[in-house]
């Protein structure tokens, strides 16, 4: 049953991320992209947050777990769209990596 909880959390985070107009993937070359996308980091964070909730003992092994997974997915997508870039902004000025300075 636990794997269904993970699937619901990741799936709902990805679907809401797409509805909130997050791109599916970062632009290429991906390894240098700072764009918040549906696959990275939304899906990865949904996976991590679900594991945290599970291991903290908030899952009940009943059908309510599916609702909890849905809530985790929704909150993760909202977090990635509206809060992540404010909480952890891209580096700028002297802290910016060399390849970012060249692109400006």
């Amino acid at each position, binding site marked *: 049953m636990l794997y269904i909880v993970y699937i619901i959390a990741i799936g709902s985070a990805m679907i809401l991320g797409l509805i909130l107009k997050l791109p599916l993937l970062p632009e290429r*070359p*991906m*390894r*240098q*992209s*700072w764009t918040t996308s549906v696959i*990275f*980091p939304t899906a*990865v*964070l949904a*996976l*991590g*947050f*679900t*594991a*945290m909730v*599970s*291991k903290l003992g908030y899952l009940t092994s009943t059908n309510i777990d599916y609702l909890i997974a849905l809530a985790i997915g929704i909150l993760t997508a909202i977090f990635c769209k509206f809060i992540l870039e404010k909480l*952890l902004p891209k*580096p700028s000025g*002297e*802290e*910016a*990596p*060399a*390849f970012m300075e060249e692109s400006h």
Partner: protein
Amino acid sequence: MNEILGIAIAAVISWFNFVIIDTWMGLPEAPGVKGAEAIGRDIKKRGGDLAGGFFQGNIVCSPDASAGTLLASIACFAIGTPEGGFIAAALVYFGNRICADPGYAGTTGALTITIIIAAASYIGLTPVMFIAGMMIAILTIQGLHHPASSKLLGKIAQKMGRYTEIE
């Protein structure tokens, strides 16, 4: 499985896991922060390779696949497999972003080693062996001889098309 043999196998797996992912994610291409550039140039001055030096500087300055591999191994030991690895991946992402790094290498490294630890448990390898193995793996890169290890990392970067264009 015999503990010493297990640690040796885990060290080899961890070494390839973090070196391949970090190189693929472009660590030898450019220093992520100024500290990484200083380390890279210092290693080159001591007879090493610049791309390998940038690689070493980057893994010092932010939690890349090396830290992801180690933290996921620790989390799998402390919390359980695979949940610990998933939690480590999410936390490594936040650590990456705090360290001016987009976070691809760290999270990918944490997730791949979690899958490897889960699969290797069937042949008797435990997360503890991966913790010890990763310590040995990182020692070979950062702890023994910087010029020699940076040359090896530079050659791997050239083979994977990730060699630096910075002079």
